[in-house]
């Protein structure tokens, strides 16, 4: 018994140092040297300013301004509306505003829950209101599920190609670009399946929107 206690105490201390300090520090060291971009979260800069991470989804809504030109707030939270010039990410229900990447949460919406139906119906309505003016033939049957359902992390950086194709109508109109130009960009930023077969095809929204900004600037 005493031998076990002695070995256990020494064991916990020694193994904590080896597995809890040496191991993570070695991985950090190698990771920072060999894959610095990936180890630090694939940050995206525009003109030297950090605008987000390629992997972390974000909201492309803009603050609503009041009459004085200040950002409007209700109970401390920013009031926002979708910025129609950009592709919009999936709905997100993180606490403290959509796409809060300091506190990821599941939405935990049950499959037989009235609240889920209400949230879905609301998202369908918002989607149709935003897209239909630019794509009059859009019907509810064409709306892809990812445009309505929240993701698991609520930080999904991608949308489905079907979702992007619908939004392309609006973005093209707002930016006075032709639809084929925007569609080409969508295709360019559509990731193929991992290893060619696994997972789903998706469009990285931040990369696509940044590419749009570059295109618009160039064509002006």
């Amino acid at each position, binding site marked *: 018994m005493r*031998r*076990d206690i002695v*070995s*256990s105490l020494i*064991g*916990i201390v020694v*193994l904590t140092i080896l*597995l809890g300090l040496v191991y*993570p520090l070695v*991985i*950090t060291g*190698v*990771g*920072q040297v060999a894959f610095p971009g*990936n*180890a*630090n*979260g694939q940050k995206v800069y525009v003109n030297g300013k*950090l*605008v987000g991470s390629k*992997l972390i989804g*974000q*909201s492309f809504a*803009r*603050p609503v301004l009041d009459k004085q030109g200040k950002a409007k707030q209700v109970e401390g939270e920013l009031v*926002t509306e979708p910025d129609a010039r950009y592709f919009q990410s999936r709905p997100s229900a993180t606490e403290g505003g959509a796409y*809060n*990447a300091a*506190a*990821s949460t599941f*939405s*935990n919406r*049950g*499959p*037989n*829950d009235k*609240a*889920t139906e*209400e949230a879905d*119906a609301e998202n369908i309505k918002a989607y149709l209101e935003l897209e239909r003016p630019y794509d009059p033939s859009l019907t509810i049957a064409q*709306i*892809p*599920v*990812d445009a*309505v*359902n929240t993701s*698991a*992390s609520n930080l*999904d950086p*991608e949308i*489905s*190609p*079907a*979702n992007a194709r619908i939004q392309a109508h609006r973005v093209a109109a707002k930016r006075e670009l032709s639809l084929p130009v925007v569609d080409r960009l969508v295709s360019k930023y559509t990731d193929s*399946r*991992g*290893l060619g077969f*696994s*997972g*789903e095809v998706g469009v990285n929204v931040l990369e696509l929107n940044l590419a749009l900004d570059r295109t618009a600037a160039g064509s002006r």
Partner: protein
Amino acid sequence: MTLAGWFTIVLFVVILTALAVPLGTYMARVYRGERVFLTPILGGPERLLHRVLRVDAGRGQDWKSYAKSLLVFSLAGWLALYVILRTQNAFFVPHALNPLGYRSAPWNVTFNTVSSFVTNTNWQFYSGETTMSYLSQMIGLTVQNWLSAGVGIIVAVALVRGIVSRSGDSVGNFWQDLVRTILYVLAPLSVLAALVLVSQGVIQNFSSYLTAHTITGLTQSIAMGPAASQLAIKMLGTNGGGFFNVNSAHPFENPTAFTNFFEMLLVLSIPAALVFMYGRMAGNRRQGHAIYGTMMVMFLGAVIVAYVAEAHGSPAQHAAGLHTHVIAGSTGGNMEGKEQRFGIAGSALFDVVTTVTSCGAVNSAIESFTGIGGAVPFANLSASETIFGGVGTGLYSILLYVLLAVFIGGLMVGRTPEWLGKKLEAREIKLAGLGILITPLAALFATALAVATRSGRASISALGKGPQGFSETFYAYLSQANNNGSAFAGYAGFIQPVAGNRGAHGVTFADLLGGLVMLFARFAPILFALAVAGALAGKRVTPAGLGTMRTDNTTFVVLLIGVIILVGALTFFPALLLGPVVQGLTGHLY
């Protein structure tokens, strides 16, 4: 459902098997003390660790002595982790390792968390990025990811030794086995896996959280941290506790469809390899193949049901008018709580991989699975870790079922049951029976207590929403009893008004009941498994005769599957009916 989805599932099984066979052979050599290719590098550190830990590595231990070492070591780990988590913002912790100045979680949540990580459960009432400092994640949680996995594996090794032993009552040496597991099995795989993950985009840094200014004029705060090192051992050791709150759904923990595939392989590699190791050590590889076949049949069944159910969509989606069939450029199906990059197949497969094992990592929200899709993880847990199971836990759990199946088979043909040449007698059967019943007992008792009391209802987020509230509660205790750790994440044991634990408090009832369930359902079966090892170790081996029932053919596989399903169904069917089955059968919304 798509062709690519089915192809992913098939390829996964093929690659898994191709990896597990050589790994199993390697592990058999390691635990028999033979030379392996890493011996020249690791032999020195191994001897050094023995000296530092003051262990007499050559000394064999009988099952009681082995169990005593295991319990003392686990208790020491428990106390150390409790102290680490409760002092995470003490004055001696450097700022760089707690950059956001997070306070410790309250005692009750910490009791739950500590019990959870020491038992390889990794049930999480807390949220990683708003509760834990980098130091706590590293020297606290990561360390127990390693140690609890190691303990699980060596219990299985000890049981196998007992089964195949030809003389004496030794089942091995606890310390020697532990050191070998960490050095020869977990360390090489974990370092390799962590580096692969970093190369694919899993973060590994000590920065403070980032603030980004988005192109539409918003600000976004982004959590950082040393995630890859913890993630690698979390998957490999079937621990499952996420660095971030949303676990393997978080893009920094699982950035691509490739990492998703890779992480699933990590989860199943050791549980699958152990089965082949058993065949090797038993001197008859077909013994391992029979168990692998049993596990694989049940595994595939679960995957198919989950994929089909999730691809169908949920009643809530349909009621809202959403169309859930596959259209060009969209997966269709129930995408509520699923990531675009994994899609339906990648989510369903991951869900099954982590609930048949005791991993419990999630890449999609189980609470949002459809009734039948959500019944799959329930069914997997009801099989009590016999479908691959946790590292080590899976093998010793199914071996107890094998014992029971041999006994039942023996009764059917009217002969004394024999297993690998050893006669099974009342003592072993009693011990195995008790070992099998502990987990269901703990799960059902705790669920009943939690739904019947006011304090238990405080944790339910879907309260008053029909069967979902019951499902949440039942899943919580079933998961904790199976040391799994996945959750219908609406079930709460920690109220945290703001990040950093200011004004946070735990739900004492759920925290304590869960913690006790995890401890009991981890260590009681371990003791029974070791006791069986001890009882079998000393038995004489007699050559198999004509009338001996074989345990390495298809007939036995069918019998074993029957026994596992029978025990699971008899125990859990009434409770399952009240939750997921009702939801699966109705289109009604609550």
